């Protein structure tokens, strides 16, 4: 081998060795002592960095988990009970029992139900439309249909239905991270308790106007009559500002409220269709 090659090999090896030594000492001097459990917890978390826990990422959440003494107020909605159970084992703590939730859109202002009184032609953003005016219908509380919620969802769990002009949530994909709830400028989307078979009973309206104007704006608005409140055997329904609200943690899905509602504002999702009553026999004898 020529002297050039030998010299090159020697130079590069020396450089490599020198770099390694410098790096070793620098790494030692600037070492950050970290609780090794933070790494283990981070690995147990889903790694989606969605912010559903309220922290800026899975690692930030892991740091908070390790530093705190209990699980109070700390939950990963994406991983759910499974993940929190794993974390509990790593940290040798009692896990909290948390109810799984799902996002629900509480507005049924389709073009059929809520007549369009104007056409919105601005930027396709609910926030822009909301700051501009009351909306395309007579209801100034209802869904604006521009899809800020759909854009916010990082789990492909939402899409905008072009016919109803309302957002649709895919229950099997929704992890209740809350991004859509934050994105909606009118607080129409709510995280409600998830029931078996994804059944839901809720008041699909957020209109706080008195019954007359509310009904005029939308056929299926809540008019604040209070019949549902009276009929609920579990006191799960409350009335405030002409608007009824069903508490999903108290509701037992008994279905007594929905038929009471005169406008059809209460929606029952996921239940088997009620059978029609059998017809009276035609030849019933009349004595």
């Amino acid at each position, binding site marked *: 081998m020529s002297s050039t090659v030998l010299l090159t090999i020697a130079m590069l090896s020396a450089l490599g060795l020198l770099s390694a030594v410098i790096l070793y000492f620098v790494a030692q001097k600037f070492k950050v002592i970290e609780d090794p459990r933070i790494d283990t917890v981070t690995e147990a978390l889903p790694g989606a960095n969605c912010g559903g826990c309220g922290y800026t990422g899975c690692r930030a959440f892991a740091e908070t988990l390790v530093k705190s003494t209990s699980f109070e107020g700390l939950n990963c909605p994406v991983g759910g009970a499974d993940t929190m159970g794993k974390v509990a084992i790593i940290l040798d703590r009692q896990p909290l029992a948390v109810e799984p939730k799902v996002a629900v859109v509480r507005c049924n202002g389709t073009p059929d139900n809520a007549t369009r009184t*104007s056409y919105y032609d*601005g*930027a396709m953003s609910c926030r822009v439309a909301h700051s501009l005016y009351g909306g395309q219908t007579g209801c100034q509380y209802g869904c604006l249909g521009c899809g800020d919620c759909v854009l916010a969802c990082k789990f492909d769990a939402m899409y905008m239905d072009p016919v109803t002009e309302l957002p649709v949530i895919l229950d099997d994909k929704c992890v209740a991270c809350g991004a859509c709830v934050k994105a909606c400028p009118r607080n129409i989307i709510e995280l409600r308790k998830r029931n078996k078979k994804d059944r839901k009973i809720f008041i699909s309206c957020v209109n706080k106007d008195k019954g007359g104007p509310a009904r005029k704006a939308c056929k299926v608005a809540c008019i604040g009559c209070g019949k549902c409140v009276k009929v609920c055997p579990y006191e799960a329904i409350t009335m405030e500002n002409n608007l009824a609200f069903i508490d999903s943690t108290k509701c037992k899905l008994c279905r007594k409220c929905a038929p009471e509602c005169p406008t059809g504002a209460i929606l029952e999702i996921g239940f088997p269709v009620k059978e029609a009553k059998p017809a009276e026999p035609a030849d019933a004898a009349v004595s």
Partner: protein
Amino acid sequence: MSNILNVSPSPHQQSAETTRKLMYGVVIALLPALAASIWFFGMGAIIVTLVSVLACVATEYLIQKFILKTKPSISDGSAVVTGLLLAFNVPSNLPVYIIIIGAIVSIGVAKMTFGGIGNNPFNPALVGRVFLLISFPVQMTSWPLPQGFNTGYADAVTGATPLAIMSEGIKNGETVSALMEKVPTHMQLFYGYMGGSLGEIAAAALILGGIYLVWRKIITWHIPVTILLTVAAFTGILWGVDPTKYADPLFHLLTGGLMLGAIYMATDYVTSPMTAKGMIIYGIGIGIITVLIRVWGAYPEGVSFAILIMNAFVPLLNKYIKPKRFGKEVKHG
């Protein structure tokens, strides 16, 4: 009232200028140069231009419709402009398959991979041209001589461009004055009687188009004037120092793709700075790099590389050079 009204935030009027009108304005500005190239190079010019434009439009359409599955946007005219400019950067006898490859690289690689119009950091036509230059050096450097309108596509007699003659000659030690005998006169260079690519020959036609662009407010004077002034100044200094080794500034201004580059390629909206100050720095950079490559580099022509290099600096220029704000800042308590 029976009318259902439209509601939107202000403003409620929009100007009549659209992206499509701007793009087709550039096409119109390039028509004199196209006419000159057909006049001097004949059938080849027509074929090369047609193939390039069709290939660029087709590439964009196919990618958008079948790969991206979005609504094709070819009607905005930007692919047509890229096709024209790519054609203007290649010889009139370039084989069809090479043009098509160039179009696929220009649109497919340099534009669509970055997200389509508005997102590409480098000028697509120049990326295509440089790709072809490096991949097909022989075909891309055999420049047809101007033989007139009746020349067939494959009939062109080729020779070196005036810039190449000058550059090679100087490297071989000949004096500039001797070389000036071998190249067309300044007047011939001005109206296009010279060998070269489709678009680089007719400075007069290019300048005419440039005036149209400024009048139509499609481009501003900053970039073309700065590039040309920088090149003139730099080559002027060199020529002043040693006129036997360096060609005069007017020669440099009229040869190579400088006019084409300064007026049409460097002024591409997407890849040029957004502020006037930024544009001037950009223009000076292009001018300096062009002359550096022409005089001391391996290639006789430097404009394409100069523009591509300065394209890389544009995000930096946009980030740090801001327009002059109205009203000085007041520190709030």
